[in-house]
């Protein structure tokens, strides 16, 4: 009897060790997968590019850097402001329409930045409805007599990007206010602190890591954007990389600029981490009631509703409504293209599969670093997030270079040993594309899941282990259930990002495989925007699915999101 128990315990311990090693190995493999394209680029960059930097330094960088910094500062400040205010508004106050706003504020996530730029350029064009109405009111009949300032400007770019990217801040900050801030806020309230003082002295400092995570995601999206900046005439560093590569056929040069940019981003992110190194945020992870929101009435309620509805209006309803109208017009003119359904299915399936892979990998990396906090795994965790800090096109090139090499090796080996060609297994099957999504968006899942884990006190880990759970057991029974909300939020962000992704999809997809984004791009490149409107609307619609799904699961379970 006793010996049986001992054997089983020993077996248990051994399998626990193996499980533990599996977590560590998985983490290193995933980090290596993300590092490979970066190494491939490093190799490209080392192939030299004579005279590039003197040209860049003299004629490109001064302008590109100042444009990039202005854009990032502007977007950073605005998304933090809009995201945090709206999150506080829907958690601290109650007013008619609040429940709807709570999820509606997520809607702009479904709108890719290049679509919002294209929609607003049309809407605000002298020939568009807005200026048309203004002229009618003022009694002018030709745009030559009166027109408003051009949206194609730095200010225009900052505004437009901020109103689609603020949900990256709203999502984690609201979660922070709802769960862990709640106890402290209640305590502060019992001590008689006023609501605005609670916001400044309790909620805001607590929300800082969530704001930092959200802002950095939004800024990475801004940095990666080519479509919107190009449309709006903002010449960022990313566009310089693009020009160096495409117009001057200088891939090594483009690789050099993007690696320089990557180093800058990594330094900035590390600086931010270093600045809040002494702060610990783990609190009581129990689910308990959030603090009661304050009821607003009369004009205060109206004001709150207006304030909360503005981001939804500008970031979603206006561009979405515009697309719906344009798509409707086109539908009457040319009917519905059948390929649109295939493309919508491709987009949905590809994004769903990639999201599962990205979430699973994110869990592995974040959990390994928590369960075995050794230097190597912490570094692996940082490496796994590199892909998001590079422009999508450049990362895709890095992947192309080495995956195609692997593909050729497989093909040649097969020809040599089996006497038949396998063709391009990884690129031809779309695996390369899925890999690109993984490398690019892993940062989102690692970041969110890590933040979710950080709210679980370490004592829980110890308790679980003392109670006989292995490393993996604690993860499935303790960590995952307690950070389900963070995982769901990460899943939403990754899904919509995969769906909107364009540069890697264009470069790495197999023959005869179109997604909504590539379709839209093809039409836009050809200048046939009217056909693009339907694909754009379809992107928004497909993107709505996960947003609604997440929103529905939201109110009933407070820790979700």
């Amino acid at each position, binding site marked *: 009897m006793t010996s049986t128990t001992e054997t089983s315990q020993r077996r248990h311990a051994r399998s626990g060790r193996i499980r533990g090693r599996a977590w560590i190995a998985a983490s290193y493999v995933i980090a290596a997968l993300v590092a490979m394209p970066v190494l491939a680029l490093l190799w490209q960059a080392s192939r030299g590019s004579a005279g590039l930097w003197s040209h860049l330094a003299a004629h490109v960088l001064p302008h590109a850097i100042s444009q990039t910094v202005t854009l990032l500062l502007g977007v950073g400040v605005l998304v933090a402001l809009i995201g945090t205010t709206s999150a506080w508004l829907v958690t601290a106050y109650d007013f008619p329409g609040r429940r709807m706003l709570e999820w509606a504020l997520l809607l702009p996530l479904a709108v890719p930045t290049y679509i919002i730029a294209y929609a607003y350029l049309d809407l605000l064009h002298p020939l568009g409805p807005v200026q048309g109405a203004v002229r009618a009111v003022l009694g002018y009949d030709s745009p030559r007599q009166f027109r408003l300032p051009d949206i194609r400007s730095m200010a225009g770019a900052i505004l437009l990007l901020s109103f689609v990217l603020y949900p990256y801040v709203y999502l984690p900050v609201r979660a922070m206010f709802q769960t862990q801030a709640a106890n402290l806020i209640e305590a502060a309230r019992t001590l008689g602190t006023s609501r605005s003082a609670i916001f400044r002295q309790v909620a805001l400092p607590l929300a800082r890591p969530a704001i930092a995570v959200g802002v950095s995601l939004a800024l990475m999206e801004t940095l990666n954007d080519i479509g919107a900046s190009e*449309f709006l005439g903002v010449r960022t560093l990313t566009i310089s990389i693009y020009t160096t590569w495409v117009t001057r*056929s200088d891939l090594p040069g483009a690789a050099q600029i993007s690696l320089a940019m990557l180093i800058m981003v990594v330094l900035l992110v590390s600086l931010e981490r270093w600045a809040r190194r002494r702060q610990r945020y783990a609190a009581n992870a129990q689910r308990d009631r959030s603090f009661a929101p304050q009821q607003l009435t009369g004009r205060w309620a109206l004001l709150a509703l207006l304030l909360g509805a503005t981001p939804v209006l500008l970031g979603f309803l206006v561009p979405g409504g515009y697309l719906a109208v344009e798509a409707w*017009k086109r539908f009457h003119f040319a009917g519905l293209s059948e390929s649109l359904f295939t493309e919508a299915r491709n987009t949905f399936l590809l994004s769903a599969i990639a999201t599962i892979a990205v979430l*699973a990998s994110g869990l592995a990396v974040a959990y390994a670093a928590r369960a075995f906090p050794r230097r190597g795994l912490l570094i692996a965790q940082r490496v796994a997030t590199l892909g998001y800090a590079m422009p999508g096109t450049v990362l895709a090139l890095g992947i192309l*270079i080495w995956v195609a090499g692997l593909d050729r090796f497989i093909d040649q080996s097969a020809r040599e040993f089996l006497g038949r060609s396998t063709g391009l297994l990884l690129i031809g*099957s779309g695996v390369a594309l899925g890999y690109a999504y993984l490398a690019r968006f892993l940062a989102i899942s690692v970041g969110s899941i890590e933040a979710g884990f950080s709210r679980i006190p370490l004592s829980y880990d110890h308790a679980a282990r003392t109670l006989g759970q292995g490393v993996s057991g604690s993860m499935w029974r303790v960590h995952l259930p307690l950070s389900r909300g963070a995982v769901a939020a990460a899943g939403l962000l990754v899904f919509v990002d995969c769906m909107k992704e364009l540069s890697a999809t264009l470069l790495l997809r197999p023959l005869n495989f179109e997604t909504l984004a590539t379709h839209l791009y093809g*039409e836009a490149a050809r200048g046939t925007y009217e056909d693009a409107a339907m694909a754009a609307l379809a992107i928004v619609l497909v993107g709505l699915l996960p947003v609604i799904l997440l929103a529905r699961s939201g109110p009933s379970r407070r820790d979700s999101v």
Partner: protein
Amino acid sequence: MTRPHSLTAALLGSAMLMTTAGAALAADELNLYTSREPGLVEPLLKSFTESTGIKVNTVFLKDGLAERVEAEGDSSPADVLMAVDVGNMADLVDKGLTQPIESDVLEANVPEELRDPDNNWFALSTRARVVYAAKDLDIDSITYEDLADPKWKGRLCIRSGQHPYNTGLFSAFLTHHDEAETEAWLTGMRDNLARKAGGGDRDGAKDILGGICDIAVANSYYVGRMRSGDGGEEQKAWGDAIKVLLPTFENGGTHVNISGAAVAKHAPHKEEAVQLLEYLVSDEAQKIYAEANYEHPVKPGAPLDPLVADFGELKVDSTPLTEIVKHRKQASELVDKVGFDN
């Protein structure tokens, strides 16, 4: 909740699911890699398949066509490489990704100045870089040099100076003028801009109707498509608001660029690939090019679409395309230097 190994299984399963999208290496098929927008080549490919029974698998790669084919090496399924700019065609040859083609049909149908000297690539259609002018503007002709004239201050619209259509034109300018003159010309044009350089070629016409500018530099075929009404009433209004001027260099003709195609070096279906190229320069396909795309056909004597013929007689600049291509990098650097897009 799923366990780690079932997650791995899910990953593998998803990878296999996606293989259905891969294209086979079967006979009666060929694989086309193109940087030409899918909507533009589809009618041609459809007609090709109908007349030959050969199925065409395509992938549209806007940028990175050469990089992808190069990376795929001798395992690449690519048979035909199609691009929209002579610079892109030259890149493919420079990287050794094409092969010379001996074909009487191609040599007979594509004039010498519109193909690679070693027959690595062949032009399929040409597009002129023209000037759109507001309908009521008192002007009938213009030179490219005139675009820098201060009388156009605040009246000129153009897309990004780094776009291949523009670097192509600026390279051509460099074959007629020296670097200093070109820089001065670019500076002059920059000072004449009515708005930031950007957007697409059609925006030129739209912005003229919207009162933002009086003249715009753009490609010829967009006018055909706008005026045909295929894009709806709004675009017809843009197309009707302008007149097309065929500009020339002071001592030359109108700058044209090409769309072209080449057979990939490791093409698994070389025979079918040559067949497609020959088809694309046949009377039938050239007619489709003219009608569906409103471009100028390459085959001498092929009919123009009436909408295009309406622009007037095109006097193509005699500088060989291969000469123009050599100045691309210089042109692109000058664009940066004068801050054309800033």
